[in-house]
């Protein structure tokens, strides 16, 4: 058996490949931890015990052929907005509470074919709309570092599960920071690949010009392994790209020699928690010591990124969520004994099936697209989005990557912002730009506050240049010990 609980992908894969341990035993170890620890955290919406054990046993039976696969016997979790055939995919919503898709998302197919074992589905804000996982039909997930605090969102369950070592890998989605922000709040690694890198076929669409699927892991190396498994062109997603895959053979050890790292210092002057600033400055110092050149860059449109994001994302959501109308899948309002027409069925179903935040966003998006308001809101936001994109392209023609904090503050308390949507939205200031521009971005653990809450450090790269992100991120990881810090939940487990 492998000792400890911080198992990396290669440790698990190699131990199973050598025959030192059975995939079934690895799977069961994690399932048992989930059973003990997750009562408190609520990071899972569905635990797929039987299916996972069956999958692991199949790997053990044909260990000789499976052992060459990159995720041979590696347990993973899947955010509950990604379709898994014949197991519930609820999107954290009453609307899809019992919905079992008849097909696997492309990423799920690729992961299964690589030997991954799916332990279960993770909790998230309803239809991935939120920054705290409090807007879930299944109730909030708690942060394993401090259970009075939120784990971030919308992929809060995914990040909490990895941080609590309930799985070495979580697969999640990021529309405005939903992988990176919870990764930062839970002290783990979160990667949003370039728009087009990973197929979204089978991802319940939120905002189609922004959504991207990526991994949450304990290390940069693990993020790179999973990234390589899930990336690639998919004929079922016309926005997926045929760009050549990255060369995984010489990614690590990372280095920052001759690299230019841009920092938008003027943007970071105000509105940031002092402990976050301190951790960020320290991170820049480390990269500079390792040989990177730190370049002062200007990103003057940063303050506009949040309003642009919330107008575009909600407009797209209002259209994407029109399909939930009580006809083809999911919930239908109880109409027994009432003589209703089709319109009443639609509107009752949608009002009962969706939670407040989803309704709020559908309303905002519908308004931004409606006659008389389209030019002032949606069209204007699209234009400013172009300015933001030009600005990032200009900066990235001079520097190899851009560094900034992942979030302006550490995790907040459960309930702190839940009734004040605008204050919740403002926390997304550093993450939404990577979605608006389609650029790849990664969040890394970079410190702990005095209260022992994790702080995240973010790198944004050139289109399809995840390689540089991995190298810089790995260099940072090798020169700090944040990766080895564990949440205090372990003393209780």
């Amino acid at each position, binding site marked *: 058996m492998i000792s400890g609980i911080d198992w990396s992908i290669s440790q698990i894969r190699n131990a199973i490949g050598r025959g030192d341990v059975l995939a079934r035993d690895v799977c069961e170890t994690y399932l048992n931890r989930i059973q003990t620890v997750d009562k408190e955290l609520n990071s899972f919406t569905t635990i797929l015990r039987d299916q996972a054990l069956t999958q692991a046993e199949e790997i053990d039976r044909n260990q000789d052929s499976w052992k060459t696969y990159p995720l041979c016997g590696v347990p993973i979790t899947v955010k509950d907005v990604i379709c898994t055939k014949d197991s519930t995919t609820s999107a954290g919503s009453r609307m899809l509470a019992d*919905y079992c*898709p*008849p097909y696997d998302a492309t990423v799920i197919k690729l992961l299964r074919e690589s030997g991954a074992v799916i332990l279960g589905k993770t909790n998230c804000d309803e239809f991935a709309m939120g920054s705290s996982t409090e807007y879930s039909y299944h109730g909030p997930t708690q942060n394993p570092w401090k259970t009075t605090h939120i784990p971030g969102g919308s992929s809060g369950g995914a990040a909490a599960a990895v941080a609590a070592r309930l799985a070495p890998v979580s697969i999640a989605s990021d529309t405005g920071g939903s992988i990176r922000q919870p990764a930062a709040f839970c002290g783990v690694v979160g990667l949003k690949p*370039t*728009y*087009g890198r990973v197929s979204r076929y089978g991802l319940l669409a939120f905002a189609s*010009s922004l959504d991207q699927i990526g991994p949450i892991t304990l290390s940069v190396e693990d993020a790179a392994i999973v990234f390589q498994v899930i990336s690639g062109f998919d*004929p079922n997603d*016309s*926005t*997926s*790209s*045929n760009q050549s895959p990255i060369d995984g053979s010489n990614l690590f050890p990372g280095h920052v020699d001759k690299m230019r790292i841009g920092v938008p210092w003027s943007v970071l002057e105000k509105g940031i928690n002092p402990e976050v600033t301190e951790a960020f400055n320290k991170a820049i110092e480390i990269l500079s010591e390792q040989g990177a050149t730190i370049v002062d860059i200007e990103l003057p449109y940063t303050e*506009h990124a949040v*309003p642009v994001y919330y*107008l575009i994302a909600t407009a797209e959501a209002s259209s994407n969520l029109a399909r939930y*109308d*009580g*006809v*083809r*899948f*999911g919930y239908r309002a109880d*109409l027994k004994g009432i003589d*209703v*027409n*089709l*319109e*009443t*069925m*639609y*509107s*009752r179903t*949608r*009002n009962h099936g969706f939670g*407040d935040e989803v*309704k*709020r966003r*559908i*309303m*905002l998006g*519908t*308004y931004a697209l*409606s006659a*008389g*308001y389209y030019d*002032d*809101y949606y*069209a*204007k*936001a*699209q*234009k*400013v*989005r*172009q*300015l933001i994109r030009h600005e990032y392209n200009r900066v990235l023609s001079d520097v190899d990557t851009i560094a900034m904090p992942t979030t302006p503050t550490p995790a907040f308390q459960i309930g702190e912002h839940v009734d004040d*949507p*605008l204050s919740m*939205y403002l926390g997304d200031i550093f993450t939404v730009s990577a979605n608006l521009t*389609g650029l790849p971005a990664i969040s890394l653990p970079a410190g702990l506050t005095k209260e022992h809450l994790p702080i995240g450090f973010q790198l944004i790269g050139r289109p399809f240049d995840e390689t540089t992100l991995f190298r810089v991120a790995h260099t940072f990881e090798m020169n700090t010990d944040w990766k080895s810090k564990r949440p205090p939940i372990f003393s209780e487990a």
Partner: protein
Amino acid sequence: MSKKLTRSDVERIASLANLQLTKNEVSLFTEQLIQILQYAEKLQTVDTSSLSSSNSKKNITSELRPDKPNLSLDRKEALSGAPDASSDGFFRVPKVIDR
């Protein structure tokens, strides 16, 4: 720019979005949407006169697949998630045409 959002605007949007909101929800959303839209007002100060509104994506290549017939979900699978599917293979909805 645009005048302040009113309750009747919210009711109109809700009907466009097929959401039957309660009175309390209309009040809550009116208040919250006013706040969010006020914050978004600052976009109006950005000069975008030289830009078109199309969302051109220079970095993205859109790949189309060949238009070849392929197997997809069978009828039973396609109906498997429906809240009201008839046994003879249809989605059932309330009457659309008057009796």
